[in-house]
Every structure is written in C-alpha cells, then in structure tokens.
C-alpha cells in the first residue's frame, strides 16, 4: 500500500500545527518521521488516521482519497499504534487484540473462532503467545507495546502508523520493537524521536520542523538546522575521534 500526503495542513483551535506536509511511503517501505518536540509529528499522524480533519491538502492510499472512505473502511486499511494504553479498565491481552477485529465486524456478528485464531497468530508473531488471558495493565512497557502491535496485526491493515513506539522503553526493548516492526514488511510510517534509530531502521527519514516536512534525509546540516545541535553520522564521528586521538 502506498501512502501519499500532499500539502496537508492541520489547525487545532485556530492554531496551525501542521502547515504544509508532504511525504510518500512506498509499498512495503518503512518511513520514519523525526523532528523536535511539538513539530507536529503526532498531529500529522492523527490526521492520517482521521482523528483530526485536515484543513487543507490531500491524503491518499493507493491513489484513493482518504476522504472518500468511511471510518470503518479507513480502519481496514490503516492500523495504528498510538500513545494510548487501554489500562484503566481491566482488559485482558486477548480483549485488547480482539479490538483489532472491530472494523471487520458488523454490529450483530459474533466473535468467531476465526477471529480468535487471527488474534492467536498475531500474538505469536509478536512473541506474546500464551499470554492471552493476562491482564493488560500488569504487563511491562515492552510487552504492552507488543500487544498493541498484535492488535494492529489482527486488524489486517496494510498500512501501519506508529506514534513514538519506543517511548518509555529501555534500549533493548526499543530495538526489539523496531526490529519487530521492520520485519513485519508492512508499509509503515513511524514517528520516532531517536535519530540513530530512524537512520538505522527506516528506508527513508522525513524531518519535520514547525509543522512542515523540511527534508527527506538526515544530513548533518539538516540536524544542525532543525534540532540546533551539531551532529555527525556515527562512522564519521568515530573517524574524527580517531583523527583527534592520533
């Protein structure tokens, strides 16, 4: 599935948060969205999964205008791992993953063995098999993130959006989650805050600054301009340190 954003603008309570965002994620590609806090990454993602209505611009999936689709049809195409945990009411892991079947069910249709089968497979893929009846609230941060990815898998959408999926995770679990997501092979757009992770895992990195997508690669110049820090790629850094030391 191919995702195209063109000239997207989002305004919240009269304040423009996203001004003009354009990007392309090709079928099966993993694109990362980076940028300083408050640059509009989450807002842009929320516009793509239609929690917000864009004030201007076009969002299309495989050449299909998103506005032509119902919410339910959108949910069959786009799965989301947002920064929101269903931890207040005591849902089990299976309850949470079964929620992914929502866009595939009619109001009166029952949850079938087939739905449960897909959930079991999704849990197996994220290495959480056998924990279906655990309480979601009691899981660790990394496990919770895995369950939310399983829910996205059970949704059987071909586009996956992730909003800072490595937040609050230790470094090992950050890498775990990113490996897992990359290996799914879905068309993926992920807002990430770690530039090294973005460079390492994504096929393409889009850089946002004050509501605009300002670059589609992470060069030292872009990092200096957008983040206000001097940064160089690791290999170059190692090389320069080597030069200084010798």
């Amino acid at each position: 599935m191919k995702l195209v954003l063109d000239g997207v603008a989002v305004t919240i309570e009269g304040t423009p948060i996203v001004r003009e965002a354009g990007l392309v994620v090709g079928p099966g590609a993993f694109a990362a969205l980076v940028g300083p806090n408050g640059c509009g990454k989450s807002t842009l993602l929320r516009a793509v999964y239609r929690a917000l209505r864009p004030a201007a611009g076009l969002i299309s999936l495989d050449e299909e205008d998103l506005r032509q689709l119902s919410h339910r049809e959108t949910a069959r195409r786009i799965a989301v791992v947002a920064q929101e945990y269903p931890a207040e009411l005591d849902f089990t892991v299976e309850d949470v993953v079964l929620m992914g079947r929502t866009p595939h069910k009619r109001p009166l249709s029952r949850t079938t063995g087939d739905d449960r089968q897909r959930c079991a497979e999704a849990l197996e893929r994220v290495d959480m098999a056998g924990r279906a009846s655990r309480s979601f609230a009691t899981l660790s941060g990394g496990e919770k993130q895995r369950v939310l990815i399983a829910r996205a898998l059970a949704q059987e959408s071909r586009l996956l959006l992730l909003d800072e999926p490595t937040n609050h995770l230790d470094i090992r679990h950050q890498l775990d989650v990113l490996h897992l997501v990359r290996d799914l092979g879905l068309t993926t757009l992920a807002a990430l805050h770690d530039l090294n992770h973005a460079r390492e895992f994504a096929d393409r990195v889009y850089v946002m600054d004050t509501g605009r997508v300002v670059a589609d690669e992470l060069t030292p110049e872009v990092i200096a301009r957008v983040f206000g820090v001097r940064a160089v790629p690791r290999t170059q850094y190692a090389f320069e340190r080597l030069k200084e030391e010798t």
Partner: protein
Amino acid sequence: MTLTQKATGRAAPIARRGSTFGLVLGLLAGAVVFATWLAVSIGAVSVGLAECWGIVADQLFPGSVARTWTPVQEQIVWDFRLPRALLAILVGAGLAVVGAVLQALVRNPLADPFLLGVSSGASLGAVAVFVLGASTLGGLSLSAAAFGGSLMALVLVYVLAQRGGRLTPARLVLAGVALHFLFQAIYSYILQQAQSGRAAQQVLFWLLGSLGGARWEMLPIPAVVLGAGVAYLLVQHRPLNALAAGEDTATSLGVHVGAFRLQLFVLTSLLVGVMVATSGAIAFVGLMVPHAARLLVGADHRRVLPVSALLGAAFLQLVDIAARTVDAPRELALTIVTAVFGAPFFLWLLRRRA
C-alpha cells in the same frame, strides 16, 4: 505441530471463560428471582413464600391454583409489593448499566451518574416540577423534567470538559463534580424556599431514593427504556470496548467517535432521567456494580453489561428489603443503605488501585 493446533491449545482458557460467563449469568438470574421472591414475601404482613407464587399464578391465570391466602394478602402482594419489587429490578439494572457505560465513556472506573452531575441534574428537574408545580414548567411530567435535567447536565459537562476538540476524562470528571454541587445547591434552594415544610421533607426523602411509590402503571416506561437501551448497548459492545481503550484508539478501529459518544450521552441521560423520575437519586449502585461485574467476567462489555444489569437488579432488591425491614415500620432512604455498602467499597477500591 501445526499453527492451528497450537492456536487451539492456547484458546482453551478463553473457552473456559465463556462457560464461566454462562454460569455467572444463570446464577445471577436465579439470585434476582430469589431476591424478588423474598421481597414480595417479607413485610409487616408476612406472606408465605408458597402463597406468593400462588397469588401471582392466580392473577395471571385466574382459578389455576387453590386459594390459601386472604384477600388482604393478595392486595398487599399484587398491588404493592410486586410492582415495587419489579421496579427495584428495573432501577437497579438501569443504574448499573449506566455506571458501566459512563466508566467506559470517561475511561475512569470511578465514574458514576453522581460524579458526572447527571443524577443531580435529573433531581433538579424533578424538584422543579415537584415544588414549583408542573404548570410553571409548561406542563412537563416528572419523568420528562428529570430527563431534561439529566440531559442538560450531560450536555454542560460535555461542553465544559472539551478542549481543542478533545475530551479528556479527567476534565470530564472535574466538570461533573462541579456541576453536581451546583445543581445540588439550586434544588436545595428551591426546597428551602418552598411553602410547605411537609412537601419539602417528602421531596428530600424521595431525593435520597425510594421505591415506595411504585405502582403497576409506573413500570412500562422504565422497562421499555431499559430494554431498548441494553439491547442497543449490547449491539454496540465492540465500539464501547474500543472507546474504553481510548478516543484515538477507537477512531483508528473505525469508530466514528463523535457520533457514537453523542448516542451514549443521550442514552445514559434518558436512562438516568427515567430512573430518577421513578425512584429518586440512588447513589453507589452505578459505581459499585460494574466493578463487581468486571471482577467476575472481565472488562469486555458484551459480558459486563448483562452481568451488571442482573447484579444491579439483585443488589437493589436486597437493599430495598433492608430499607423496609431494618427500621420497620419506618423506611430508610435507599441511598442510606447503599452508602453503608458503597462507601467502604469505594475506599477499598482506592486502596486497591493505589
């Protein structure tokens, strides 16, 4: 081992929970019937348990059983206790279901119709009709005024809690609590200003919850509203689960959150309005019962809603029996009895969550 076999093996605990659900439903339905049977039998004039069935059977199918009771007993059971017991079922179930829905809506297990100001909104509407008279309010019936009050409360809470197009559960609860006290102040003022002290006392008693006014003709409206409401909610159990997981989550799962939330607001205010109009504002049922239901069958609303309804019905039936018998021949207001259970339960809940 194939994937299918492994998956079936893992599905086993879930299947067990399915049969637990059936068992819980069966036991609770039995408890409702038994509590209702007791409620009809117990009172100043005691009527034997067997006679209760006989009277009901005789009313439904005249001449089908030999009469072993007096006409007075028959009148007490059929005209007073049975409608009262049936109203207890409806109100208990209704309040519990509203509690479950509101807790999902604001994603806060401590939400109940009181915390969101809905009950006091309904009370305000009812007090206005009671004290000022229906004529001053354009001939509104008590139910309609109570419904109007609860809807007004929910709309206000909804508008006040909104910020930037998003509804945050914490703001919802805060706005609800503020409005609750405001409405309480207004109807207390109306009551104080009322001419007749006796009428004011009657209203006050009614405000704390009483099923004493139950008559057969009061039952159809709550029954229809409750039946339709529960049926609608059961059909919508998936969007309800999704909404309980979060607003953005629900949107990403294909739920039109704005429209769905509005439907839930109208439905809950209708339910609360009808329940308050028939029985006053009974606290704690909506808070406690959904919790107990979740402890029994988990958080999935397909199970929580029917279990809450039955549990609420059985609970309120027992509460009403206690309210009638503890201080007989005087009756206690129902909220006094529910609070005796509710306040410790609330505190236990806080400790458990902390």
